[in-house]
């Protein structure tokens, strides 16, 4: 008997896809530049079936790639040709909502926004809101420790998860709770990219909806003025619920889709949302507007209704795919930098863009320093993807060199493995591999992702110190 037969026997024919034709749409996630057809796709209906899939895969020594909605942007669920994709999209039940305790217990396939929709009637919501929140699953959010536009004030996924149930390759269940004694395994699981276990149940923290929220939109003639304004807002002791910046190109693309009246003549646009009690919001919105105009904003709009506020966000939330209107393909980077290096990094990206001959649209979670340059390219043009990847790696290395990190919220996946070598040294990577082996001694859970092998880094290292020259030699090293 082979693994496909065993899976079919265990979880029924309808839940196992094995023909080349049926497996092909699973060959990539939100990063379609990387593709690999899996051996089979298992779509279990319940947790018992998930356990069965894991045990069978262990028995047949077949790698397991856990997948939620497949909206990830780093290739974290890229299949292996001899591996099984474990799709959890059918585990989409909200198991329990306790409005008094302000928690929801959900299965991993529940969509992010579905949680907020289900608890809306209690005046509650689930805070992390990645741009793909209408489609992405909570399980995937935990695996990637997803962020969103409201992270600065309300935190990432790790800050809003109270406990999880996790399966290992034997199908054994462990519970990791915020209340646990000793080391924090719950925190470790957040952002572990499917390498340490399969998450089958999640208890989420719900927050009361603020009494009021207002969005201040400010247009700037220069990107660096806009960047300075961000720093000023935070210096004045205001923590905005969201603080987002778009450059000319991305704001034009967003306007094209959302048609909400973004000033398309601006060089940079800042969206700053304040929330809280009515009185607080009034005070803060006015303070923010004052600070921004002092810092050179030439046009300031303050949302006057909930409808207007949501409409103004629409453009930003759809900015990535909206760029798809101007280019057949884009490559989304996720570096994070200290805010005070923003102007410098944007200039460098602009310079590199000229060298590589590839256009870049910049979307920036300005509040938490998370930069999303979108490199526009055409995958149908020979060699352009390779050029784009090279450009992307240079941007990420630049982020590390100014004291930042290669990924703020998308994860390493397969895409940033080489950049991991730039960010970490051998001993740290050894620790990472050690952690992986403790949770998964078979090495079958999503192998080859998130943490590069030392061998790979040795090769990348040789590439980096080419001619004894480091990139950006004028920068102070961190």
């Amino acid at each position, binding site marked *: 008997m082979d693994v496909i037969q065993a899976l079919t026997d265990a979880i029924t024919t309808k839940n196992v*896809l094995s023909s080349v034709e049926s497996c092909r749409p699973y060959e990539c996630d939100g990063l379609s530049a990387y593709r690999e057809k899996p051996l089979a796709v298992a779509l279990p209906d319940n947790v018992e079936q998930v356990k069965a899939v894991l045990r069978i895969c262990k028995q047949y020594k077949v790698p397991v790639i856990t997948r939620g909605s497949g*909206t990830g942007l780093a290739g974290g669920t890229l299949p292996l040709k001899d591996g099984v994709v474990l*799709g959890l999209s059918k585990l989409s039940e909200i198991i329990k909502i306790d409005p008094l305790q302000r928690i929801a217990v959900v299965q991993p396939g529940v969509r992010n*926004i579905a949680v907020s929709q289900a608890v809306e009637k209690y005046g509650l919501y689930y805070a992390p809101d990645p741009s793909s929140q209408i489609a*992405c699953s909570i399980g995937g959010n935990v695996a990637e420790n997803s962020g969103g536009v409201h992270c600065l004030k309300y935190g990432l996924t790790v800050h809003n998860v109270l406990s999880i149930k996790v399966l290992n390759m034997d199908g054994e269940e462990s519970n990791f709770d915020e209340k646990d004694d000793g080391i924090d395994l719950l925190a470790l699981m957040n952002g572990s990219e499917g390498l340490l276990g399969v998450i089958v149940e999640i208890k989420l923290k719900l927050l009361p909806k603020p009494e009021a929220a207002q969005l201040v939109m400010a247009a700037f003639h220069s990107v660096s003025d806009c960047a300075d304004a961000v720093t000023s807002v935070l210096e004045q002791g205001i923590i905005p619920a969201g603080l987002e910046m778009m450059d000319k190109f991305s704001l034009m693309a967003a306007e094209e889709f959302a048609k909400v009246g973004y000033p398309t003549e601006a060089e940079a646009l800042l969206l700053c949302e304040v929330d809280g009690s009515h009185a607080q919001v009034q005070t803060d919105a006015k303070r923010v507007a004052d600070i921004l105009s002092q810092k050179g904003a030439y046009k300031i709009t303050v949302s006057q209704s909930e409808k207007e506020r949501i409409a103004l966000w629409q453009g930003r939330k759809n900015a990535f*795919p909206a760029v798809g209107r101007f280019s057949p393909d884009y490559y989304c980077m996720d570096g994070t930098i200290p805010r005070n290096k923003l102007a410098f990094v944007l200039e460098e990206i602009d310079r590199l863009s000229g060298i590589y001959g590839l256009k870049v649209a910049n979307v920036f979670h300005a509040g938490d320093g998370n930069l999303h340059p979108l490199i526009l390219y055409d995958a*149908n043009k020979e060699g352009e993807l390779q050029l784009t990847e090279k450009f992307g790696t240079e941007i990420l290395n630049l982020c590390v060199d100014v004291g930042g990190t290669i990924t703020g919220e998308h994860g390493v996946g397969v895409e940033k493995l080489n950049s991991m070598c730039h960010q970490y040294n051998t001993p740290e990577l050894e620790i990472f591999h050690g952690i992986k082996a403790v949770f998964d001694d078979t090495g079958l859970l999503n192998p080859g992702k998130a943490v590069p092998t030392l061998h790979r880094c040795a090769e990348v290292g040789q590439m980096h110190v080419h001619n004894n020259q480091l990139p950006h030699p004028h920068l102070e090293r961190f």
Partner: protein
Amino acid sequence: MQTNLPTDLLATEQGQTADKILRSCVHCGFCLSTCPTYGILGDELDSPRGRIYLIKSVLEGNEVSKDTLDHLDRCLTCRSCETTCPSGVEYGHLLDIGREVVEERSPRHPLQRLSRYAVRKSLTTAWFLI
């Protein structure tokens, strides 16, 4: 999204339209959220993004069977996905092309054809209203 349609297909108007639509899709998956069939079945193949991929695969000259036809048949053509798609993919248009090509390449069983014909005719006759 990268496409690799054969040149003879790209020479036709239909092929060019399909290629243009396919390339406008960035595979972000936002459409999964508003698709009624994906909501119930939870299988990528029953989502707009999955169907786009199936159609791409067929147009690129890969093997096709009743499976693909089934997944395309399940689509209600409500085009709810188009309202969610930030990239402006004309899914409905692509689906029309896809259905035509797939039906050519993986013909329906004569009985199924007969029953579909009967339904189509009977539903549109005046006596059905009585």
